[in-house]
């Protein structure tokens, strides 16, 4: 049987060798993330380049999930028939970022323009995957936007997009519930705690608000309290959840979580919408885009809700941003000038109007001050001109906030760390510390110098 034995080995050996060889070849092909180099069209970046590109025309691909994107693209191509825009809805939020990340890593397949939320922007800008738009002179548009959104589209010294919308937070409250239990609209957090206790004692099935543990909400609350847990300077990062702002927030929130007056229904679920509709949740401190959600998904609450400024720690107006996105140009783009021109049109030109028509909340100062926008009564909110409160909120955003360069990762592990404190209804500071430790470890592993 010597022959058979040799034959078996020979066959196996050949297969193994082939597999090994193919793996090695693939390993060689495997891209490493990061800068893929500019695939520019050769045109020099300058403000004039934008208008020239629009005149010349061309084709660009645009990835976005906003409801207004289709209308905007149509209006754009009507205005500039020379330009063809491939509008692609590649997914929402994390799905969209996953694909973008994959395409960047593979070196091809990324769009020319992509929607990126403010908290995700550093993650794409830092490794050099986005085009710095200041080369096209878009830096001069600062005065058109609110300071907080303008800061949000900068990473380091570079400008990586133009703000599309903003989400200044306000307090939405269920007036029917407040009337029924004789509650006054709180102006400070101490008043808010008192109202929470009163409500929950009167009816244990009702909650002052709902917070199952959400990283966006937690960071916004720390922001409102004046905390600045994240600072970034190139590769140097500091993370500190023991600063004054964080402590202010946890001292209030611990009380609410601890005595069970906060509901822990998961957001954006059927139960959540129903709870908003039937009075189980009495208030929501959330971004200015919420009216659209109420109107489309909370039919049971029509006429019952109103908007008031968010409670603050000292009674003076202060709020934070919760959500909002920009459009950015990818370095992989073969026509960056045309892409940049499209971004300018979207968020600083005629693209704003279709955006607002679909219910978007603007980041531009002009639109925030426009009386027809500000004073429009909203039938869902009992006729209240809610934009009065919301635009005022846009003007009282606490300045100086920045997100982590790896905020998406941070948000992903929030449940592992701070979420456990919510689950156990225990001290949020312990959860924040745990979050901080995990983030420091991750940052250092990925080549940042965190807290060093």
């Amino acid at each position, binding site marked *: 049987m010597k022959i058979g034995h040799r034959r078996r080995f020979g066959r196996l050996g050949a297969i193994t060798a082939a597999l090994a060889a193919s793996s090695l070849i693939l390993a060689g092909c495997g891209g490493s993330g990061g800068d893929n180099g500019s695939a520019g069209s050769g045109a020099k970046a300058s403000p004039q380049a934008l208008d020239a590109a629009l005149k010349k025309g061309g084709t660009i691909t645009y990835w976005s999930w906003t*409801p207004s994107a289709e209308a905007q693209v149509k209006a754009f191509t009507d205005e500039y028939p020379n330009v063809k825009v491939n509008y692609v809805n590649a997914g929402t939020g994390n799905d969209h970022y996953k694909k973008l990340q994959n395409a960047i890593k593979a070196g091809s397949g990324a769009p020319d323009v992509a929607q990126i939320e403010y908290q995700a922007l550093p993650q794409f800008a830092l490794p050099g995957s986005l085009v710095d738009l200041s080369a096209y002179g878009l830096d001069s548009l600062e005065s058109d936007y609110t300071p907080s959104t303008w800061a949000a589209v900068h990473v380091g010294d570079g400008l990586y997009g133009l703000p599309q919308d903003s989400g200044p937070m306000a307090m939405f409250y269920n007036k029917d519930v407040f009337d029924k239990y004789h509650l006054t609209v709180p102006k400070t957090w101490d008043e808010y705690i008192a109202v929470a206790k009163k409500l929950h004692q009167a009816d244990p099935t009702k909650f002052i608000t709902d917070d199952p543990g959400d990283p966006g909400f937690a960071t916004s609350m720390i922001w409102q309290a004046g905390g600045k847990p994240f600072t970034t300077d190139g590769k140097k990062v500091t993370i500190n959840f023991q600063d004054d702002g964080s402590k202010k927030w946890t001292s209030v929130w611990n009380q609410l979580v601890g005595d069970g007056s906060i509901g822990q229904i998961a957001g954006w679920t059927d139960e959540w919408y129903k709870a908003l509709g039937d009075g189980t949740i009495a208030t929501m401190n959330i971004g200015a885009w919420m009216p659209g959600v109420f109107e489309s998904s909370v039919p049971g609450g029509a006429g019952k809700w109103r908007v008031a400024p968010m409670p603050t720690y000292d009674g003076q107006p202060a709020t934070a941003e919760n959500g909002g996105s920009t459009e950015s140009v990818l370095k992989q783009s073969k026509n960056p000038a045309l892409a940049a021109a499209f971004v300018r049109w979207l968020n600083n030109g005629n693209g704003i109007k279709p955006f607002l028509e679909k219910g978007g909340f603007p980041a531009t100062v002009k639109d925030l001050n426009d009386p027809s926008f500000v004073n429009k009564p909203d039938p869902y909110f009992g006729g209240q001109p809610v934009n009065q409160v919301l635009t005022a909120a846009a003007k009282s955003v606490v300045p100086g906030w920045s997100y982590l360069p790896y905020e998406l990762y941070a948000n992903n592990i929030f449940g592992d760390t701070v979420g456990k404190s919510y689950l156990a209804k225990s001290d949020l500071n312990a959860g924040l510390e745990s979050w901080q430790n995990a983030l420091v470890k991750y940052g250092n592993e990925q080549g940042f110098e965190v807290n060093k």
Partner: protein
Amino acid sequence: MTVIQEGTVTAGNVVSARRTRKVAAGISPLRPRKSRLLTGLMLLYLVYTLVPLVWLVISATKTQSDLLSTSGLQFGHDFALFSNIKETLTYRNGIFLRWLGNTLLYVVVGAGGATLLATVAGYGLAKYRFPGRRVVFAVVLGAIAIPNTALAVPTFLMFSDMGLTNTVWAIIVPSLVSPFGLYLMWVYAEQAVPQELLEAARIDGAGEFRIFWTVSLRLLAPGIVTVLLFAVVSTWNNYFLPLIMLSKPNLYPLTVGLTQWSNQAQGAGADPIYNLVITGSLLTIVPLVVVFFLLQRFWQSGLSAGSVKQ
């Protein structure tokens, strides 16, 4: 069937009186009476299976606002099934139909191909004692033991290098491999195709592939049907790899498309289309039920009747 006398002891077994009467009455043990107890117990399980499905059907009859305001297992104020279906099929220029077409393509080529490859390979593993057989088994088992989530990015990069991402091949090629189908066919072939039958055919001078095609395939029919059904369902519901591979919505299969609709219905700037997600999901199941009905008569056959005498 010979009538066996009551009380007779045969080969160590005592034949019960009831059995004798049954045999005498022509009711053979191979065609037993229906059992009410068994049916009752199985009905309990059936109810358990049906509750979530009933939710799906009832929800598909509700309008968006009813969905968000009425209880799950009760009907809403309006019966909107047909308008939901119409809206699902026409939303965004009928992209749902496009997704349906894509899914059909992926399933016909992918599941069909997978069944073919798995059947041929499973048969080969079962009926031929070739060297390296055990290695094949070990390698395939080892490969599917590795969670596919971590293989997604390497596969993506590989396909991207080959220029296959964002093409139909990115979906079809991976779905051609059904290791579970391979094992199932292996097991079925072992049992359903007697070696003696093959020997008989070989003595008659037929070549191996001819034997496979004319003799074995018929016997494998119930197994093939099962593998085909599983391949159809899993390719139909294939979600993760298409999600990674495709960024052009007009190539999406139904699963990815529906998930996109579902995500659009949430978050800032939400589009209220939960009713489309649910109706779309119900519509997605319908073709699978049809396939099930078409294939199920093959389970009736497949007995190697009379070809070889033991």
